[in-house]
C-alpha cells in the first residue's frame, strides 16, 4: 500500500514501467506463446484419470454379440432409404417397436436464412424417429441418449443398424435410466429440432411438432457415425457448440473401453504418441493440441453431440474411420464399447460433475487443466495491460506537466476534450459492426436483384464489402478534435481501445480459451504497437494481417496444414468464403456465437486501432 500512496516511490515505479515497457511487453508476449507450446510437454500435461467413483471401480461385462443382426439391419435400412429417398420412418418405427421400444416421431421444418450451398438445403423439413427403452428400476426420471444423425450426404446406415441391434440387446433388468435411441434427419438440424422440442424451448425459430414421449432429465448422450461394416479406428470428438466441452470423465470412460476392447482410438484423427521421452511424441501432441484449439475456437459443433452441451447433457461423438490400415474391427467391437459405456453411465448416481469441464487435450490420455493453460492467455493479455498503463501514465504526465505543477486547471479541460473526441470513432465503429451483423442477411434479396449472384454468394460478398468499407471510414471521424494537444487524442482513443480489447479477450478466454488465445495471439502485437507516427505502411500491413477476418483465413490454412491436407491459395479462398457463409448460418440455425462476437465485438474494436493508425 505504501508503495502506491507514497508519491516519491510511485513516481519511481511509474518511471520503471515507462522505461521498461517495451521489453516487458515483448517478454510477456513471448512467454505467453512459449507457455502455450509447452502445454503439450509432460510436466504440464497430466495423465487423465477417472474422477467419478460410480464409473471407476465397477467394471461391467459386455455381452453384445449382435454383429450379424446389426449388419442386416443396416442393409435393410440402406435399402429402404434408397427406395424412399428420405428417412424410412415407417420401417424404423416398425423395427424399433419389434425390439420392445416405445416409438415416437417428430416432424420439423425450418427455412434457413439463406440457401446453404455446402449441404444444398434451404427449406428443410424432416422427421425424427426415436424409441425409448423404459428402465424397469426407475420412474423415467433420468435417461441416456444414443443418437445417429442421418444427413443427405452421410448415410450413416451402419450406425443405425448397430443402434437397433444394441436396442434389441438392451432389454435387461439392470437399467436404472431410460435409454433414448434417436435417429435424426438432416443431421444437426434434426438434432437441434429434437432437443428444442424435448426441452420445450424455441431458440432458433425451428418449427416442430411437440414430443409425445419423454424420459426425464438426460444425463449423457453419445452420437454415433459409422459408414462401413468394418472400422480401423474410432475417432472421438468432444468440441461442442461455442467451444463447450463435455465433462472429461465421459472421455475417460470412452478411453477405458478403447483400452479394454483393444480398439484403436484417435483424437482429431491423430493417434496417441507412444514415446514421450523423445521429441516426436510431444511434437505430435503439439499438433493434436493445435487442432483441438482451432476446432474449439471455431465454436461450431464437431458432431451432433455438440448441440446437447447447451442443455447440460454431457455428450461426445464417435466416428468409425475405415482407412487403409491392416487390422479391422467389426461392429461387435464397437457395439461392445458402446454397451460398456452405457452400462457404466447407468451406474451414475449424480450427473457427471467430478472431473474437468475446461481442459485441452494434447492426446487422448493426456490433458491440460484450466489452471495450467490459463497463464498462457494471461501473459498475452498482460501486454495490453502494460501498454494501457503506459498510455495512461503518459496522458497523466502530459496533463500535469513535466515540472510537477501544482495547478489543477488543465486537468478537466484536456480530459474533457479527449473524451469528446472519442465518441465519434466509437459510435462509427460500433455502427459498422452492427451493419456487418445485420445487413448481409437482411439485404440478400436486394443484392440478388441488382447483381448476378445467388443468395449465399450475396451474403458473403456483402459481408466482405462492409468489412472492407469499414477501413475507409476512419478518416472523417475526428474533425472535432482541438489542435491544442494533437497526441492526446489518439492516445486516449488507443487507451480506450486497449482496455476494450483486453476486456473482450478476457471474457472470451474464460468461456472459450481457444478462441480467446487465438485472437489474443494474433491481435495483441499489432494492437500494442499501432500509433500514427513511425512506419505507418508497415503498421497498416500488420494490422490488416491480424484483423479478425485475416485470422480466420490464417487459421483455415493452419488447420488444413495440421490435418496433412494443405490448401492451395485458391482453394483456401474458396474455403474461406464457404466458412463465412457457414458461420452466419450456424449462428442462425444453432445459435453459434462466433459471428456476432466478431461482428459486434472484435471488428469494431479492431477498427478503433485502424482509426488510431490514421489519426491526423
Amino acid at each position, binding site marked *: 500500500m505504501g508503495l502506491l500512496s507514497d508519491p516519491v516511490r510511485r513516481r519511481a515505479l511509474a518511471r520503471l514501467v515507462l522505461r521498461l515497457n517495451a521489453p516487458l511487453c515483448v517478454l510477456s508476449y513471448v512467454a505467453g506463446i512459449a507457455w502455450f507450446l509447452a502445454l503439450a510437454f509432460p510436466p504440464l500435461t497430466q495423465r487423465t484419470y477417472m474422477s467419478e467413483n460410480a464409473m471407476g471401480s465397477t467394471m461391467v461385462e459386455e455381452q453384445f454379440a449382435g454383429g450379424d443382426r446389426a449388419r442386416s439391419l443396416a442393409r435393410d435400412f440402406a435399402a429402404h432409404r434408397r427406395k424412399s429417398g428420405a428417412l424410412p420412418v415407417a420401417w424404423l418405427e*416398425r423395427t424399433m*417397436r*419389434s425390439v*420392445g421400444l*416405445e416409438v415416437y416421431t417428430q416432424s420439423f421444418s425450418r427455412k434457413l436464412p439463406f440457401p446453404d450451398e455446402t449441404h444444398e438445403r434451404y427449406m428443410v423439413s424432416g422427421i425424427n424417429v426415436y424409441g425409448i427403452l*423404459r428402465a*424397469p*428400476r*426407475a*420412474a*423415467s*426420471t*433420468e435417461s441416456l441418449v444414443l443418437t445417429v444423425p442421418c444427413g443427405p450426404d452421410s448415410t450413416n446406415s451402419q450406425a443405425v443398424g448397430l443402434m437397433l441391434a444394441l436396442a434389441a440387446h438392451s*432389454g*435387461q*433388468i439392470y437399467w436404472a435410466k431410460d435409454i433414448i435411441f434417436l435417429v435424426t434427419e438432416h443431421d444437426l438440424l434434426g438434432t437441434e429440432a429434437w432437443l428444442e422440442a424435448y*426441452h*420445450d*424451448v424455441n431458440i432458433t425459430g425451428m418449427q416442430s411438432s411437440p414430443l*409425445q*414421449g*419423454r424420459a*426425464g*432429465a438426460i444425463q449423457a448422450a453419445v452420437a454415433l457415425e459409422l459408414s462401413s461394416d468394418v472400422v480401423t479406428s474410432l475417432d472421438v470428438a468432444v468440441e461442442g457448440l461455442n467451444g463447450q466441452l463435455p465433462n472429461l470423465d465421459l472421455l475417460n470412460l470412452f478411453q477405458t473401453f478403447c483400452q479394454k476392447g483393444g480398439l484403436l482410438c484417435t483424437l482429431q484423427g491423430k493417434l496417441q504418441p507412444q514415446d514421450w521421452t523423445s521429441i516426436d511424441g510431444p511434437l505430435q501432441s503439439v499438433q493434436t493440441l493445435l487442432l483441438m484449439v482451432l476446432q474449439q475456437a471455431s465454436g461450431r459443433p464437431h458432431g451432433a453431440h455438440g448441440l446437447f452441451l*447447451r*442443455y*447440460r447433457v454431457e455428450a461426445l461423438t464417435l466416428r468409425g474411420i475405415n482407412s487403409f490400415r491392416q487390422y479391422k474391427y467389426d461392429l461387435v467391437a464397437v457395439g461392445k464399447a458402446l454397451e460398456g459405456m452405457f452400462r457404466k453411465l447407468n451406474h451414475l*448416481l*449424480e*450427473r457427471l*460433475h467430478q472431473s474437468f469441464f475446461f481442459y485441452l487435450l494434447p492426446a487422448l490420455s493426456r490433458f491440460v487443466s484450466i489452471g495450467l493453460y490459463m497463464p498462457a492467455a494471461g501473459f498475452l493479455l498482460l501486454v495490453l495491460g502494460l501498454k494501457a498503463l503506459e498510455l495512461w501514465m503518459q496522458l497523466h504526465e502530459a496533463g500535469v506537466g513535466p515540472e510537477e505543477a501544482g495547478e489543477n486547471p488543465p486537468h478537466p479541460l484536456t480530459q474533457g476534450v479527449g473524451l469528446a473526441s472519442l465518441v465519434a470513432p466509437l459510435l462509427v465503429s460500433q455502427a459498422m459492426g452492427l451493419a456487418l451483423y445485420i445487413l448481409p442477411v437482411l439485404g440478400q434479396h436486394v443484392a440478388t436483384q441488382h447483381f448476378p449472384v445467388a443468395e449465399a454468394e450475396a451474403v458473403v460478398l456483402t459481408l466482405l464489402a462492409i468489412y472492407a468499407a469499414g477501413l475507409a471510414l476512419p478518416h472523417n471521424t475526428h474533425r472535432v478534435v482541438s489542435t491544442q494537444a494533437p497526441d492526446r487524442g489518439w492516445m486516449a482513443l488507443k487507451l480506450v481501445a486497449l482496455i476494450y480489447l483486453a476486456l473482450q479477450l478476457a471474457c472470451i478466454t474464460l468461456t472459450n480459451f481457444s478462441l480467446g488465445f487465438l485472437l489474443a495471439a494474433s491481435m495483441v502485437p499489432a494492437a500494442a504497437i499501432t500509433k500514427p507516427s513511425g512506419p505507418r505502411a508497415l503498421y497498416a500491413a500488420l494490422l490488416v494481417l491480424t484483423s479478425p477476418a485475416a485470422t480466420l483465413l490464417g487459421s483455415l490454412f493452419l488447420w488444413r496444414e495440421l490435418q496433412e491436407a494443405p490448401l492451395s491459395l485458391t482453394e483456401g479462398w474458396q474455403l474461406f468464403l464457404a466458412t463465412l457463409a457457414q458461420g452466419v448460418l450456424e449462428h442462425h440455425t444453432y445459435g453459434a456465437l462466433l459471428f456476432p462476437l466478431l461482428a459486434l465485438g472484435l471488428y469494431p474494436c479492431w477498427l478503433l486501432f485502424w482509426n488510431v493508425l490514421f489519426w491526423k
Partner: protein
Amino acid sequence: MWPRVLPGRDNVTDNGNIKHQREKAALSQGWGHWEVEAAAGMAAPVRIFLLVLLLLGPGGWGRAEPPRDSLREELVITPLPSGDVAATFQFRTRWDSELQREGVSHYRLFPKALGQLISKYSLRELHLSLTQGFWRTRYWGTPFLQAPSGAELWAWFQDTVTDVDESWKELSNVLSGIFCASLNFIDSTNTVTPTASFKPLGLANGTDHSFLRYAVLPREVVCTENLTPWKKLLPCSSKAGLSVLLKADRLFHTSYHSQAVHIRPVCRNARCTSVSWELRQTLSVVFDAFVTGQGKKDWSLFRMFSRTLTEPCPLASESRVYVDVTSYGQDNETLEVYPPPLTTYQDVILGTRKTYAVYDLLDAAVVSNSRSLNIQLKWKRPPENEAPPVPFLYAQRYVSGYGLQSGQLSTLLYNTHPYRAFPVLLLDTVPWYLRLYVHTLTITSKGKENKPSYIHYQPAQDRMQPHLLEMLIQLPASSITKVSIQFERALLKWTEYTPDPNHGFYVSPSVLSALVPSVVAAKPGDWEESPLFNSLFPVSDSSSYFVRLYTEPLLIEEPRKGGLVKRLANLIRRARGVPPL
C-alpha cells in the same frame, strides 16, 4: 356417494350394543385397568368361538353367527396391451369391531400393529403405498390402483383430534418403523392438505379437509426390506395361499412394483347400521415380457413367480385367482388358458366389459388334480406389433427450459375420448425452493385458453410448506391440455442440500382424479360380493368410473455451491478448531 351412518340407528338395532356402549363409557374412566381384565376374561370364549368357527369352516356362513373377522385373498392377472403381464394381489381383512371406541386388545386376523395405530391416533382412514417404477398408463392401460413412484401416505383423522399436525408427525414416524421406510422424512415441507383431490374412500360423515394430510416422498427407494414387514401383516404370512407367490427376488425383478396398505371404515351390513374396519393389502407387479420371456408373450405362474399355488390360506374365506381373458380383437381364438377354468366372471371393469377365468382355490377340484396349480396362458397367434389401444385419460409431465435459473413445469393431459369431455382434478405439490410464478399459469386445450372452474392455490413458505395447486379442468373431447407454470430456483443454504446434490431434486408427481366416461354402463351389483379389484373406489353412477392417475416425478437440477466456497468454509472451520465439512 355412500350411505351415511345415522348415529341414532345403532341404539335401536339391538340391546347388546347399547349395553356395550355403557360399558365403554365406564371404560373411558379407568381404561388401562379394565383392558387387562377384559382381555383375560374374553380369552376363553374367543378361543372356543374360534374353534367353532374353524370346525364350521367356510360352509357355515349362513348358519352360525357371522364371524367377527374375515379374510379374502385374490390375485388378478392381466395381460397388458403392450404384451407385459400385470399381477395384482389383494388381501382384505374385514373386522366387525369398533376399533375406535372399544379398548380392543384381542386381535386375530387384523394386525395388531395397525389396529393400535387406529385407536392411538384416532385415524379414520390410512393409505400408504411404496412403489418402485412407474405405471405407464399410455401403454399398459388404466390401472386398478396406481401409486406414485416412491412412498405416498395420506390419512384422514377423526374430527376429535385436536392437533392434527402432531398426530400426523407421530403417525409417519411409527409407520416408518413398521414398514422400514424413510417415512420419517415426512415433515411440513412436503405435507399438504388437499381440498378436493383426496376424498375419504370409506364411510364418512363429514369431509372437513382440515383433518386430511397428504405427503409423497419421490426419492424413497423400495426394496425387500419393505416387503418383509408388509408380508408379516398377512394372516398366513407367506406360508400358504396366494402369498406363497410373494418371493422378493421375483417381485423386484419387474418393471413396476407397488405395495400398499389401505385402512378404511366400511358398512357392516347392507343397511349400514354399524361400522366395520377394512384392511386391504395390495401388491401390483408388472412383468416385462421382453425381459423374462425373450420376446415371447406366453406366461405361466411358475415363469413369473418361480412358484405355483398348492393350497388356499386356511384362514381365508375366499381365495381366488382371476385371469383376464378378454379378447380385444374380433377373433376369440387368440389366447388359451391352461388348466381350463371351471367358471368365468363377466363384469364391467373400468368402463369396459371384461371376461375373467376364475380359479377358486377353496374348490378342491382346482388344486387336487395335480397337487399344484400353475396357470398358463398361451397365445395361439402372436399378437401383432401394433400400437396398443390408448386409454381415455393419461398424462405426462416434464420440465422445460435449460440453465440453472428458471424453468417451467408442464403437464400434458390427454383426453382421447372421441366425443365426451370430462373434468379432471389436478393436484400439484411443488417444493418451496422452486418459486412458482403464479401469473404464468396457463392452461391451453386445442390452442385455446381453458379456464379451470375451481382453483385452490396455497403459496409456499420458505423451509415451512410447499406450494399446493389444485384445479378442476374440463378436458375437451380428443384433446391435449397443457398446464404450465414457470418457476425460479431458490438458492439453498448449503446444509439443506441432500446427499449427492448433483443428482438433482425431486418434484413429486401431479395427481389426476377423474370420473372417466364408461364405454359400457356398469350394472350396480352387491359391493360385498363383487371381486376385490372391482370394489376399491366407491361407485357413484354407472355411466362413469373413477380413476386416479399419477404422472412421473421430476428431477430438477439446483444451483450448487462450487468447491471454492466449501474450501473457504473449511479454512474458517479449521481456524475455529471445528472439523471440516
